[in-house]
């Protein structure tokens, strides 16, 4: 397990998601400013399609989520757990900004 430098922090869009390649896996990154920086699997566990970064960010009773663009399940950005079905999880990644760079902890 190691930190992977994915991009310059200025290239992250604010308030919406974007995808990144981390050790061969697609990861969805959400930079929500004062509300935090998150990374989860880009693959929608309900369908197997890689597109969660394209979802809308939602505040579901205080839990920040992304709504899958396909069938609108909501995944917590913090835990990756699906609000509608706890068995579905888009695994979260550790993510941080350091010296102007965005780093994600790769899962080997």
């Amino acid at each position: 397990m190691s930190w992977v430098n994915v991009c310059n922090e200025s290239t992250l869009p604010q308030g919406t998601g974007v995808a990144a390649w981390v050790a061969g896996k697609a990861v969805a990154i959400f930079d929500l400013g004062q509300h935090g920086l998150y990374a989860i699997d880009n693959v929608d566990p309900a369908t197997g399609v890689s597109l969660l970064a394209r979802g809308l960010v939602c505040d579901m009773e205080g839990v920040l989520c992304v709504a899958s663009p396909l069938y609108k399940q909501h995944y917590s950005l913090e835990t990756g757990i699906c609000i509608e079905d706890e068995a579905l999880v888009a695994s979260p990644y550790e993510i941080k900004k350091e010296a102007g760079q965005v780093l994600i902890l790769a899962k080997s």
Partner: protein
Amino acid sequence: MADSTGTSNSTKLTSVKPKLVVIGNGMVGHHFIEQLCTQGLQNQFDIEVFGEEPRPAYDRVQLSKYFETGSADELMLTSAQDYQDWGVKLHLETRITALDTANKTLTTEDGVTSTYDSLVLATGSYPFVPPINGNDRERCVVYRTIEDLQDIEAAASQSKVGVVVGGGLLGLEAANALMALGVTTHVVEFAPQLMPVQLNDKAGDLLKSKINELGVSVHTSKATTAIVDGESAMHRMTFNDDTFLETDMIVFSAGIRPQDALARSSGLAMGERGGITIDDNCLTSAPDVYAIGECALWQNRIFGLVAPGYQMARVAVSHIAASANEVDSTTTFTGADMSTKLKLLGVDVAAIGESRGFENAQFVELSDNQSGIYKKLWLDETGKYLKGAVLVGDNSDYNRLLDCYLSQDEIEGNAVELLMTGDESAVELKDTSIICSCHQVTKADIVNSVKEGNHTIAEIKSCTRAASGCGGCSALVKQVMDQALIAEGVECNTGICEHFEHDRQSLYHLCQVENITDFDTLITKHGKKSPTGQQTTFGCDLCKPAAASIFASLQNKYVLNQESSHVQLQDTNDAYLGNLQKDGTYSVVPRVAGGEITPDGLIAIGAVAKEFDLYTKITGGQRIDMFGAKLSDLPIIWHKLIDAGFETGHAYGKSLRTVKSCVGSTWCRYGVQDSVGTAIDLENRYKGLRSPHKIKFAVSGCTRECAEAQSKDIGVIATDKGWNLYVAGNGGMRPRHGDLFATDLDTETLVKYIDRVLMFYIKTADKLQRTSVWMESLEGGLEYLQSVVIEDSLGIAAELDAQMNSVSDTYQCEWKTSLEKPEFLSRFNEFVNPDAKPDGETHLYERVRDQRFPLSPESSGAGNIAIKDITTEQNEQAVAEELV
């Protein structure tokens, strides 16, 4: 044993059922049959109904509606088919001329005699025509039946001036009808005031001045002495004070008299001034003969309203059923409250109980000359009990006052407070309060119906019949239902999601009046406060796209605008200006207005599809859909299409999709108008218009309707004189034929009406509500929409026109704008680090029928998690709405 049972059964089946005859098929006579049949009594009786009029029962209470719609259809309460389905024999246009109660027979005017076992007289009443010389002159008519209305219509077509004789309830209704027919209208009343039966003098005077303001001349204290030839008009009416009035037509509406001639000639007991005497069971003096409605006299009173008539009908049904089954009848007629609330010529008028006061009464009087409101409460000598009330100009207190009057509960505090409590609230109503007086439905009935699972007005109506009589109580029924729903823990669902308590219409209104142009402001100012106090402004996938649509309708700015963060609000398809497909790729649909495309256009689309290996298919909206485009290829694909002269088709938006057309008069042997040309013009006018849901049009060039316009939100069908406009049709999962909105329009008027219909839809519809459902949810439905659009009844037509012109003038092809500003294109770079893409990572496809199809993730092995359908109900809806 088996044999004997069989025998007795067959005996029973062949035995003759007792014969029940009803004379009269007005509102009360029909209600009687309806009640009988809802209880299944048509199986116990052989039922025959005789009616004098040429059609079955219709709504006489709302007679003047006939002139608004020009047709009797809207008034019908039933049909011959209903009677046939019930197994009830209905004889229309058949007068009964003789009744022999000793031998239990009756004879029609054609001399046909038949027998009865039980007889119900529901003969109603006839209009009283004052005995004035000349009252039988030409164009002197009465106001009671649909035939009378046709006579009035015919007379009005030759008249400039019309007089209504009688300033009571019916007279003012008739005046309304004359106004609607465009005749200069006068009302002549014998008493010194209008509505002398219900109103006191001050209330009558206020009503008079209000009606005068509406352009009806009211003449009180006038007794007509004769009608003779006029000088400036057909008739001259001379009055007892030596004045006169000239007019081209006269409508007598000076009260009603019980239609009791048949009963009188057969020797039934009658009142001194007419009316068939009945007891508490509605039985007359003859055995097994009942009388109900306006022909019946109970304790020396005639009840000239429909609600007491319905009560009598129910009492008679109960007694007949009880007698047949040899048990005691459970209900009796105990009199009826004659309180009434109406809108006469648009003026609110209500009378409760002893509305004209009585000796020694205490009273509270409110006379608001500025707002044109008069209210008076009559209290008993102690001042503690409400005995009567009269309201003019504002009926909003009616239900609360009626409840207070009927319950006879002691008034808490000062009686004046009854007038000061502001908007009425259903909370204050008791369980026993009658909400619908036509069908005697109490608050408890409605609440229980909600508890049984009826959660919509339509369900409540069909189950309890509340609001299905005169309809005056529908707002109150809705209020009671909503409160019961809340009590049941069912959300009334006015808010669009957990972040807003507002529905889409309120949000639209807020954004418009407060000029709100971004989501942060909207949710900060108007969002629900979260219980934790921790507030973010992210909203959710329900409210954000709704807000984006509202902003787009109001300002029509570029939808992927970064500055006001509109891009963060857009739903799946809008966000990338394409329709997301199941494998994460997009479909691309250029606009092909009216379905007309050049060979070069076809070749250009073909070349693009071939270059990017896109699956192509012709859509139902007469254009070409190309599937399987990768997110990152969308800009270059569109670049090529725009270079070839195409523009975006908005297939991804909640907006105008297509205007389908048939080939029309340019080629077709039968076409009468240029349907393709009009379709192209309409599509170009409304393209890019953002709306609560997608909108589809079609234009047919003749009545053969090859473009299937009646299944579209907006349907246009050519006639030899112009265009017929249909609105609110739908295909899809809930098909609905469009309603004919207007006929034979020229193109300019057609466009004007469509502008207004669409803008009014955008302004008032709920989120993701198609026009068909919207139309059905509008109180007043098609007629209401016609009045708003054609007659500008809300005074907003100019605003709607201006808004549509502004949207049309600010149209932009979103793809063209995006391509011109490269900063907008960054979002089509799916990965921030595309270079780190692992080798061999591609979408997997198979080829079928020479085209490319996606392999599902499990068959391609791309995903290691099985597809699991966990869509919640709400999601299902959202997803279903999103499919093209």
